[in-house]
C-alpha cells in the first residue's frame, strides 16, 4: 500500500511548539517531537500533561502559539483537520466521531463520497471501503448501521475512515481504553501489519505495558514539556513511569491486613428485565463484607451498569433483593440508602458525579446538606462551607486555585478527586466505585487506590466495577466476572488466575459451575 521511504528526514516534525491558553497556562512548552516514517511512536504522560493538546495541534484542531510543523522537512500550517488530512495525517479520537444510524460505508466515506449523477455512488463507495477493510476482518456487512457494532469494530471503522482519507500518519488517542484484552491483541496485530506497510503510528496511552509491547520509540510528556524520547527496547516500564510522574512509581500495591466483618451488601437473586425474554441482569447473588474489596470484571455492556443502578437505587429491581446493612432497599429512596451507609462513585463523573457548572465547594457539600455543622441559625453558612471544602481539597490533593472555582474547569483527575473527597467522607460503610480511575492520571489513580484500601482496612465494604484489569488485580480481594448479566466466574484468589483466563470468562468462552459461583454469596454458618 505505502512504500517505505528514506528515513533520514522525519516524516513529521514539530519544532519548539508552545501553546498558551488565555489564562496564561502553558499546555505545551517548547516541545520538539519527531516521527520517523514507518514507526510506532508512543506518547505517554499523565492526564493534563499536554499530550492531547500536542496531538490536536498536529491534527490541525488547535493552533500552536509558537513553533512550527514540518512534513518531510517542509514547513506547513494546519488551520483545520482538513489541512492535516491533506498532508496525510489522520486521527482516531478517544470518543469516536461516528454517526450511529449511518452504515459502515457511509461513515467511512463521510465528507469524501464518490458521486455519480449527483447522487452518492454507493457501489463504488462500498468497493473502496471493502478494499481497505480487508485487513481488518470486519465481519459485519458494510451496510450495517455503526450503532449496532461492538466497540472494537467501531474503532476499526474509525481507523478505516482515516485510511480512506489517505492517512499515512495515524494518531490514536488511547485506543485500548475501550477494548477487551482479546480486542487489544487484535488491534496490535493490525497496527504492526499497517506499520510493515509503511504507515506511521502515534499511540497515546496510559498503559505502559502495552506501550512497551508495541512501540518503537516512546516520548514522555510531563507538565507540558517533552521530557525525553527513548527507544522502547532501551527502557523498562519502571523507568518510563518514573519519567512520567517524576518519581518512581511501583505498580505493586501492598494492601495490608483487614479484618472481615459482617455482610454489608447482600445481593440476592437480583434480576433486571430487558427486551423481551432476555434479562439484562439475571439472578445474580453475591455479598460484600466489611473489610473486603470485591471487584467486578466484564466487558462493558454485560449488565454491570444495570447491576450498579439497582444497588444504588437508580433503577427499579425487577426480581430478587438488595440489602444494605440488613436493610432491604426495595421502595426506599436514595437518601434512605445513603443513610444506611451507601456511597457511590459513578463512572460518569460529569453527568452523575458532579454539577459541572457549580463551584468545587458546592459540589463538596451536595451530599452533606443535612449536616448541622454547615449551618448558622438554620441557614447555610458560606464560611463554614468554605472551611470544610478547603480542608477536603487539601486532604484529597485537589489541584485548584480556589474552592470557588467551577468544577468543570478542573482536569479529569482533579474532578474525580472532588467526587472521591465528597463520597469518602460520608462515614459510609459501603462504597460502590464504578470505573473510579478511568481517564485520570497515574498519580491521581494511585491516590484513589490508597484511599480505597484505607477504607477497606477501616472496615468498609467496597464494590469495585472496572474495565481496567490491572486495577482489579491490584485492589480486589476477590473478583466476580460478569457475562451476559450473570456471574460467569467467582475468582477467590485473583493472584492465581491469569488475565488471559479471566478474559475467557469475560467473553463467555468459559463458565464456572454453579457450585463454584455460589462462593460469591457468603452465608454465616
Amino acid at each position, binding site marked *: 500500500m505505502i512504500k517505505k521511504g528514506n528515513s533520514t528526514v522525519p516524516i513529521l516534525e514539530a519544532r519548539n511548539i508552545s501553546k498558551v491558553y488565555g489564562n496564561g497556562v502553558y499546555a505545551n512548552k517548547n516541545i520538539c517531537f519527531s516521527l520517523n516514517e514507518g514507526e510506532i511512536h508512543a506518547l505517554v504522560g499523565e492526564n493534563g500533561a499536554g499530550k492531547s493538546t500536542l496531538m490536536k495541534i498536529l491534527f490541525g484542531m488547535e493552533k500552536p502559539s509558537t513553533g512550527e510543523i514540518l512534513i518531510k522537512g517542509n514547513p506547513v500550517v494546519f488551520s*483545520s*483537520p*482538513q489541512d492535516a*488530512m491533506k498532508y496525510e495525517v489522520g*486521527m482516531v*479520537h478517544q470518543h469516536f*466521531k*461516528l*454517526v*450511529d*444510524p*449511518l452504515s459502515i460505508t*457511509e*461513515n467511512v466515506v*463521510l*465528507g*469524501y*463520497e464518490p*458521486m455519480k449523477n*449527483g*447522487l*452518492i455512488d*454507493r457501489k463504488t463507495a462500498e468497493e473502496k471501503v471493502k478494499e481497505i477493510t480487508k485487513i481488518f476482518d470486519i465481519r459485519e456487512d458494510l451496510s450495517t448501521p455503526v450503532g449496532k457494532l461492538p466497540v472494537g469494530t467501531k474503532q476499526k471503522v474509525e481507523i478505516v475512515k482515516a485510511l480512506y482519507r489517505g492517512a499515512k500518519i495515524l494518531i490514536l488517542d488511547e485506543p485500548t481504553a475501550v477494548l477487551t484484552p482479546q480486542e487489544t491483541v487484535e488491534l496490535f496485530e493490525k497496527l504492526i501489519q499497517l506499520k510493515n506497510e509503511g504507515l506511521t503510528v502515534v499511540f497515546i496511552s496510559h498503559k505502559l505495558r502495552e506501550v512497551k509491547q508495541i512501540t518503537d520509540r516512546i516520548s514522555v510528556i510531563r507538565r507540558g514539556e517533552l521530557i525525553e524520547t527513548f527507544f522502547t527496547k532501551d527502557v523498562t516500564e519502571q523507568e518510563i513511569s518514573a519519567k512520567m510522574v517524576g518519581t518512581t512509581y511501583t505498580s505493586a500495591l501492598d494492601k495490608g491486613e483487614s479484618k472481615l466483618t459482617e455482610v454489608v451488601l447482600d445481593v440476592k437473586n437480583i434480576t433486571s*428485565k*430487558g*427486551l*423481551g425474554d432476555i434479562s439484562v441482569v439475571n439472578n445474580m447473588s453475591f455479598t460484600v463484607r466489611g473489610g473486603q474489596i470485591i471487584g467486578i470484571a466484564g466487558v462493558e455492556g454485560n449488565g454491570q451498569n444495570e447491576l450498579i443502578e439497582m444497588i444504588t437505587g437508580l433503577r427499579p429491581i425487577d426480581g430478587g433483593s438488595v440489602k444494605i446493612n440488613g436493610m432491604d432497599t426495595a421502595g426506599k429512596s436514595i437518601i434512605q440508602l445513603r443513610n444506611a451507609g451507601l456511597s457511590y462513585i459513578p463512572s460518569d463523573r460529569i453527568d452523575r458525579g458532579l454539577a459541572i457548572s457549580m463551584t468545587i465547594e458546592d459540589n463538596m457539600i451536595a451530599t452533606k446538606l443535612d449536616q448541622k455543622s454547615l449551618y448558622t441559625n438554620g441557614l447555610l453558612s458560606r464560611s463554614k462551607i468554605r472551611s470544610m471544602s478547603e480542608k477536603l481539597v487539601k486532604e484529597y490533593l485537589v489541584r485548584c486555585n480556589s474552592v470557588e472555582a467551577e468544577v468543570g474547569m478542573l482536569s479529569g483527575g482533579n474532578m474525580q478527586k472532588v467526587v472521591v473527597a465528597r463520597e469518602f467522607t460520608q462515614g459510609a460503610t459501603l462504597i460502590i466505585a464504578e470505573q473510579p480511575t478511568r481517564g485520570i492520571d497515574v498519580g491521581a489513580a494511585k491516590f484513589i487506590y490508597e484511599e480505597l484500601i484505607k477504607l477497606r482496612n477501616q472496615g468498609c465494604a467496597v464494590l469495585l466495577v472496572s474495565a481496567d484489569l490491572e486495577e482489579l488485580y491490584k485492589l480486589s480481594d476477590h473478583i466476580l466476572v460478569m457475562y451476559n448479566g450473570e456471574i460467569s466466574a467467582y475468582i477467590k484468589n485473583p493472584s492465581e488466575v491469569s488475565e488471559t483466563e479471566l478474559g475467557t470468562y469475560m467473553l463467555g468462552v468459559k463458565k464456572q459451575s454453579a457450585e463454584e459461583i455460589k462462593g460469591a454469596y457468603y452465608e454465616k454458618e
Partner: protein
Amino acid sequence: MEQIVSIIFSADFIFSVIRLSTPILFATMAVLISDRAGVTNIAVEGTMLFAALMGVIGSAYGGNVWTGLLVAVLSGILFSGIIAFFHLKLETDIVLTGIALNLMASGLTIFILYLLTGDKGVSTGLNSKTVPNIHIPVLRSIPVLGEMLSGHSVLTYLAFVVIAIITVFLKKTRLGTYIRAAGENAEAIDTAGISVKVVRLKALLISGAIAGLGGAFMSMSYVSMFTKDMVAGRGFIALAAEAMGHGNPILSTLSALFFGAADALSNNLQLFNFPSELTRLMPYALTIIALTFYAARAKKQLKK
C-alpha cells in the same frame, strides 16, 4: 352513528382527508428536514402563516398564481433564514427564537394586511389567485379511486412529490447524508471537514421553502384568501406528526395523514349538528391523545 360511518367510508371523505392533509404534509416535511439536521424548526407555524399572506400578495400584484407561489416559497426561505441567523450566527436558543418568530408572524401578517387593504382580518380586498386543481386523465375515470385521487390541487400532488424527493434526498445525496449526520453526531461531520452550521443553514432554508408551499396551499387553494391566524396550529401538529414518525419520511407522512383525517372528521361531524366548538377541538385533542400513546409506548420500550 351509521351515517357517520357511511361518511367515513365514502370516497368523498378520503378526498377531503387528502385535501386537508396537504398543509400538514408540507409542514411535517418542513419539520422533518430541519429536525434531521439537529435544528428542529418550531417556527414552521409562523413561516406558513407569513408565506400564506405573501403568496396572496404576490399573486394579487404579480397578476398570476405562479408569482404568488414563488413569493410564498421565497418568503418561507426568508423567514427561516431569520431563524438560521439568530440560532446559527448569534447562537440564540432555537426554541425561544422559534416562539418569538411564531408570535411575530401572527402580528406581522395582520400589520402588513392592514397596510395594504385597511382590513385586519381577511384579504378580500386583494384580487389574489388560486392554484388550479388537476384532473388526472386515466385515473379520473376509474370509479371510487378516481373520485378519491383525481381533481386535487396542484399543491396536493406536489406535497407527495416533495415527500418522495425528501426520502431519496436524505438517503442518496451528499447533503442529505450530511443532514442526517449533523442531527446525530455533529462532531463526526465537523472532523470530516464539513461545516455543521452550513449544513444546518441549508436544512433550515429547505425547511422554509417547504413550509412556504404549505402556507401557499392555505391561502391559495384551501381557501382563496388570507385570513388572520389561518394556519391554526397545523405547524405544531406537524411537530407531533414528525415525532411520531421518528423522523422517517414515510412514517411521518402516515402520521400527518392521520391528523388530516381528524381534521376531515371534524368538518364532517359539523354536518350532524355536533356543536362546532367540540368538533373543531378534534384534531388538537387527537394530537394530544396520539402523543400520549406514542409517549407511553416509547417509555415502555425505553424501560425494556
